[in-house]
Structures are given as C-alpha cells and as structure tokens.
C-alpha cells in the first residue's frame, strides 16, 4: 500500500514537474512575443538525452548526481499531497530540512570531481546562495512549527483545514510573504539564476554534464521545483484533500514565479545575499517574534 502510494506520488510529481518546466518555457516565450516549444518538449529532451553519449569523470561523478536526484525524489514522500504522505511519521519537518540538502550536496560532490573551474565557481555560488535563503527559510519554518506546536507537516496541514490557511491567519502572514520572496532563490530561478548563469560560467555545476547526466539533472530540477512549491502550498495554502485541487494551488504559485522570472535580470551573488538577508529575513524575523508573542 505504502509502496503504491509512493509510486503514485513519484509519477504525479514527475508529471507536474515536467509540466511546469514545459509551461515555463511556453509562458516565457509568450511574454517575449515568441511561440515557444510545445509543452512536452522537456520530456522529449530527456528521452533524447538518455540515448546520447556522455562523459564521466569517475565514480563520484556518477554517484553524486544519482544522490542528488534521489534526494529530491525522497522529499516528495515527506510532503503531503492530496491526503497522501507515506513518510508522515519519520521525523517531520526537521528531516525535510535536512533532506532538502541532499540535492545540492549530491550535485556539488558530483561536479567537484570533474575539476572544472566553472563548476567550482558554480558550486561556491550555490552554497553561498543556499546560506542566503536558508536564514529566512529557517525562520519561516520555525514560525510555522512554533505556531502549530508540532514538527509534523501532516498535522500542520490538518490544523489549517480545520481553521484558516496560514497565509490568511495573521501571525503567519509575514512568514508567508517572506517565503514567496525567497522562492525564486530556492528554485534557482531569475533573479537568482546565478548558479547556472550560462553566459558567465557555462551553466556552472552542470558544465560537464552531457547525455544521461543532463537528463538526470533536468529531472532533479523538475522534482526540486515541485518540492519547493509543494512545501509552500502545504505550509501556507492549507494543502489540499485531493491532488487536483493541490495542483491548482501549485499552478497559481508557479505562474507567479514565472512572471518574476520573466521580468527580472540576474543578481550578482553579493547583491543576492544582501537582498535575501534584508527584506525576507526581516519579515521572517518579525513574523517569528509575532508568533512567539501571540502564542
């Protein structure tokens, strides 16, 4: 039963993630007055990439990317979606916080073995940016956990369906806004696209990937996008009792994200950190203080 649920969740996350990738290219194209590729293009790309030749720099190069993708997929099991959450009783949000780390860490280990300067710069930026958005993210997580008095995300969703969405309830409003402000950084979209930055550092950590590695890293990106948005929907938009409704909520957030992505140019890394440690952190900090005072 649990295995079946997991299987379904992975398929759903895969479809939604890939759909989002296709959709983002489509909407970006329309904003730029182009037609853009068909919405299934990312799936076609992945199938194509799996059949292409690739080079490898050693065992860790292969293993790191597998760990990265696996880490992102495992996250899906920890997040409730439409009433399904197979790993609900295995440590809650504190485990989620750490498993979110497996994705970037695997990618960084894999890229590290390739000994390419572009990759080193990309990894370094990735970790600095991660430190940048983790500070407000941790404050947000703590505000939510303190407010609901639990570390289980299923419980948090349950309490929201009984009362208000966190986003609509006053103590957590600021935290919700802060989450929206750091969401592009969490997903590596513009204005925080500096990790890949194809024009400067030849797509950073992905420089050496070709063929199946590129396919795996695209999949990782799809799952990661799913996870980042799903976390927001679960924590602030009350989750959902069925997958369709859940998907709708995710879609709204994602389209918002694409608009930001389409409009803003890229930050430099120090500008990104300054931004992340200023407004989102301030909002999240005040949010946490409010939560501590109210409860």
């Amino acid at each position: 039963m649990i295995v079946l649920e997991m299987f379904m969740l992975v398929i759903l996350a895969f479809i939604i993630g890939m759909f989002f990738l296709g959709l983002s290219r489509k909407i970006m194209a329309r904003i730029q007055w182009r037609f853009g590729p068909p919405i299934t293009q990312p799936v076609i790309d992945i199938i194509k990439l799996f059949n292409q030749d690739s080079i490898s720099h050693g065992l860790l190069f292969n293993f790191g990317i597998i760990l990265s993708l696996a880490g992102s997929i495992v996250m899906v099991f920890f997040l409730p979606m439409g009433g399904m959450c197979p790993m609900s009783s295995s440590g809650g949000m504190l485990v989620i916080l750490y498993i979110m780390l497996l994705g970037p860490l695997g990618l960084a280990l894999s890229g590290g073995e390739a000994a390419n300067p572009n990759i080193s710069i990309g990894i370094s930026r990735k970790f600095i940016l991660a430190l940048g958005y983790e500070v407000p993210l941790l404050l947000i997580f703590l505000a939510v956990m303190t407010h609901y008095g639990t570390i289980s995300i299923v419980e948090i969703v349950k309490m929201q369906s009984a009362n208000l969405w966190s986003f609509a309830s006053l103590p957590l409003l600021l935290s919700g806004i802060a989450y929206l402000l750091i969401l592009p950084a969490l997903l590596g979209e513009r204005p925080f696209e500096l990790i890949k930055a194809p024009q400067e550092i030849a797509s950073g950590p992905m420089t050496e990937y070709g063929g199946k590695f590129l396919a795996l890293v695209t999949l990782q990106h799809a799952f990661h996008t799913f996870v980042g948005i799903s976390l927001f929907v679960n924590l602030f938009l009350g989750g959902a009792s069925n997958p369709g409704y859940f998907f709708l909520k995710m879609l709204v957030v994602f389209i918002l994200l694409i608009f930001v992505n389409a409009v803003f140019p890229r930050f430099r890394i120090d500008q990104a950190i300054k931004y992340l440690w200023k407004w989102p952190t301030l909002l999240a900090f005040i949010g946490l203080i409010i939560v501590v005072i109210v409860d």
Partner: protein
Amino acid sequence: MTVEILLAIAFGGAFTTYFLSKLAKRAGEVFAVLISLALVAIVAYFYNSSLREIFYTGFMGFPLVLKMNTLSWFFAITITSVGALSVIFSLSYIRGRERTDFYYLMLLLINASMVGIVVSGDLVSFYIFWEIMSWSTFLLISYNRGPALNAGMKYIVMSIIGSVAMLAGMLLLYSSYGTLTIAELSGVMTNASPGYVLSIFILFFIAFGVKNAVWPFHSWLPPAHSEAPSPFSAILSGTIIKMGAYGFLLFFYVIIGLKKFLGFGPSVFSLHYFLCWLGAITVVIPTFIALLQNDAKRLLAWHSIGQVGYIMLGISFGTSLGVAGGIFHILNHATFKALLFLTVGAIEYRTGTRDLNSLGGFIKTMPITFIGALVGTLGIMGIPLTNGFVSKWLIYKTLILNGKPFLAFAALVGTWGTVLSLFKFVHNIFLGQLPEKYKDVKKAPFSMQLPMMVFSFIIILFGVLPGIPLKVINKIIVSFGLDSLNINIWGIASETGTLNTINIFAVIVATCLVVWFVSKAARRSKIVKQEDNYAAGTFVPADKYQHTVDFYNPLYRMITPYLRDFIDNFYMSIARIMQNLFGVIRRIYTGEVGSYLMYIILFLAALIFAQIKWSIW
C-alpha cells in the same frame, strides 16, 4: 573485577609501554595497541554494572572513592574506543619521528587519566586525575615544537585558571558540607542560598567551561588542536574536551540536582536559560569563523567549539530530549570529529601539508581516506543516516516544541555554516584539480585506513540504528531524574513527532537504487581524464591556477569584518599587560648585593615604623 583493576591496567600499561619502547620500539608499539584494545574490552565488561568502592581512606583525611555507573560507563567506552583507534592510527603516523616512547606514554596516560576522571566517585580523585590529564595534554600539544609550544602554553595557562577555580569550588563545598564524595554531595544544595549556589556555579563553570571550550573560554582550542599531532588531535577533540561536558553533567544533574538547576533564577533570566544562550553563541560565532580558515585542522578545531555549543545547548536545556540529544552528541562528535582529524592526518602524512589552498583531487589517489572524510563530513553536517542527524534532531525538536525558536534558529544556522565550511574542506582536499606534484601520492597505509573505516562504520551504524546508544543514554537521563524516552531500535516514538531512521534509510537507499537502474539503462558513459574538460574552446591548464583558493570569496568579503575573535584579542591584551607589569616588577632584581641589602633595611625600617606608630606586636 573491580574498577581499581581497570585503572591499574590503564596506568600500568602506559608506563610499561614507555619502558618497552626504550628496549625495542616495535615491542612498545604492539604493547600500546594491545593495552588500548584491552581497555576497551575491560570497560565493555562493566556494561550495566553499578559499583561504588572506597579504595583508599587516608588521603589527607579524604576517602578516595571509585564508582561505575551508566554515565561513567558511557564516557569510559567512548574514551577507550577513540583512544584505541587513534593509537592504531599513530603506528605509522608517528613512526620515524623522535621520542615515540614519550608520545605513546603520554597518549596512554591521557586515556588512563580520563578513565580515572569518569570513574572517580569523589572530587579529590576527580581533581587528581583532572590535573594528570591537563598536564600530559600540555606535553603532547607541544610535541611538535615550534608554534606548538605557544599553543601549549596558551592551553596550560587557561587550564590552570580552570583548575584553580575548581579547587576553590571544592574548598567552598568542603567548608560548608564537610564532604567531597559525589554521592554525599548530591542534593545537599537544595536549601542553599542563591548567592552560595551562584558562586559555586561560577567557579565550576570556569573549570569545566575552559576544558569544554565554551564560548568565552574557547580561545585555547584552535591553536592547540591544529598544532598537536593529528591522532592526538582526534583524542583532544573527541574526548578530552568532553571531560568538560562530563563535568557539567555531573555538576548540573548530580551535585546541584535537576530541580534546583532548572528552577534557579527568575524565569526568563534563569541560569539554565543563560547557559542555553551561551551554547547558542558557541554554535554560531565559531562555526562562521571556521568558514574563514585555510588550514584544514584549524577549520576542524573551530568546528569543535561549534559542536560543543550543541552539546551545551542540549545538556543545559534540561528536558529529556535535550539532555539525551546533548549526551548523544558527545558520542557523535567524538566519532566524526576524530574521523575528520584522522583523515587530515593521513593527508598530512602523505603530502606534508594541510593547507586547503594547495591541495586538491585526492579522491583519485586516496579513495578510502576520501570516504572517511565524506562520512565524517555528512556526520558533522547532520545529514540523515548519520549519527549527527539523530542527536541534532533531538535537540531541535525539544527547542521548538518548548517554545524556544530563537535558540533553535541559532542552532540551525550553525548547521548551515557547518555545511558550507565542511563542503569546502572536502572540496579543497579531495575534489577539484589534482596538482602535478601529488600525482604519485600513495594510499594511506592500512593502519591508518582501519581506524577511519571503523569510525565511518560507527557513524552510519548509529545513524541508522540510533536505538543502540540511545538505550544507554536513556538510562543516564532517568538516573538524573528526567522522564524516560520511548526508545526503539529505529529511533524515538512520541505523540509530537516520531523519528524513524530505518524508514528514512530504506527510502533513500531504495530511491538511489531505482535512479541508479534508470541511469544504468541509458548509454554507458566514457571515463575521461581530469584535463579533458569543457572550457569554451580552450583547455583548462594543469597547475596554472588553483580554483579552490578563496572558495567562498564573495561571502568572505561580506562577513569577515564581523567575525573577529575579540575574546582572544582581549585575553592576549591582558596577557601583554601582565607581561609588561611583571617586566617592571622584575627590575627590582638588579643583581647587586647593595640594592638587596637596601631592600632588607627598608623593610626592617618599615616594620619598626609600624611597631612604633601602631604598636602591633
């Protein structure tokens, strides 16, 4: 078997090793390994035993007591295991250096005295073993000479201040209660006045805080850890600084007692809350200072302080989960930090350097060492499936559920600092470009690989099956008077959030396998050399530049101005002022008999004047 025999073997073994090494070096080495392994076995034999014996009565009127309970056993087994593994590591590390007999003597003596500390049942023998440990540690820190002498000096000065504070605390206790055995002291302070408890507390806090390197007393640690020989750094960071934590546990929960400790002071400004904040500061500041280091061992040393912060946070928070997490973190930190120091030791042994900016690419030449470093790194970061995760989870959970999110925030941000700097550690040593001059570096010898493998195994074992150590820890916290936890072999069950590491393990491994099969199904990739790199039409030249230098440069530029170790600067300025002052006082020794004669006459004149004026005698 009694505890005396354990101590007799520990101390006797140390000295026998010394004399054997004088006769034949090899015999000394073999005996050192045997005696340290025997100690592990003997300590393991005491599992679940509760002993208390007076082994000497006439020591200046004090009875000397030895005890063995779960708390002592837990620390003793950690000490002897880390000690044995680092003795094995020392075999090839220290061979070929001079004074190896002295090295083994000191190493074993330190282990023996630490076992002595945890089994002593009264403060007098505690203090004796404590001093043996402090002084032999000083001698081993300075083993390398050069900058190590300064490091050792800094350590011993602070250590003496701590010892003096402890001695004063003991005198204060003895003068009011007339006993120094721990069993009789426990709970006597329930009705003591707050001022009295506070003064006792401050004295013992200085004593244990210096050894534990809690934030305002941390400044001896970075130079000492980085200049000591690597296998000894493992012991220093793994177990010696944990003696401070043992002292805290003993003092908070056995001597002062749980109720008095938690209820001391007005609510928000209570003592244990103050200690928690000290722990939080100890987590954050040193961790981010560690990020700036370019010396591998110095980086790890600063992290030792940071991890001590977690331990302090856990044990002084005073809830079942918190204390259990803190005690578990003591064990975990001993394993992963010892492992990390050993990997640096192996690298240093093969290359002669530990400068993070000049190494790189050793995954190709030293794979086992890399695995050790990776596991240690994951452990200290607290990634699920390593033991560090479980202990940190316990601490975070209790902080959040007891409504202290800001403490939890400090601890979590510290974790992210750890992630950044430990990734830098792994990346700069093992990943990236392998410099030409290290192309022919050989693997670490087996005697170095073995301890690293054992430590890696322990880290993952206790990460997947945390119930094994947590069962023992549960007994300890129950003996402190805290509520028992619902421990299972896979973690902790509770209404407010269950931790199930076997589930996490299964799901991660299964997902990795599935992804692996998927990537297997695709076309095989071709293995290429490290020079075969994409660089926009040109090539990446070998050895022309090191792209691991200044790994987080944009971040350094932002945070460096805020991360001065002003505590150390403060101590050093005090030291300079004292030096100048004593320099002035020293001038009275002119070396001329005439002036000494003058001092005597002046002194006599002063005495006569005092007698005439006030007629004292």
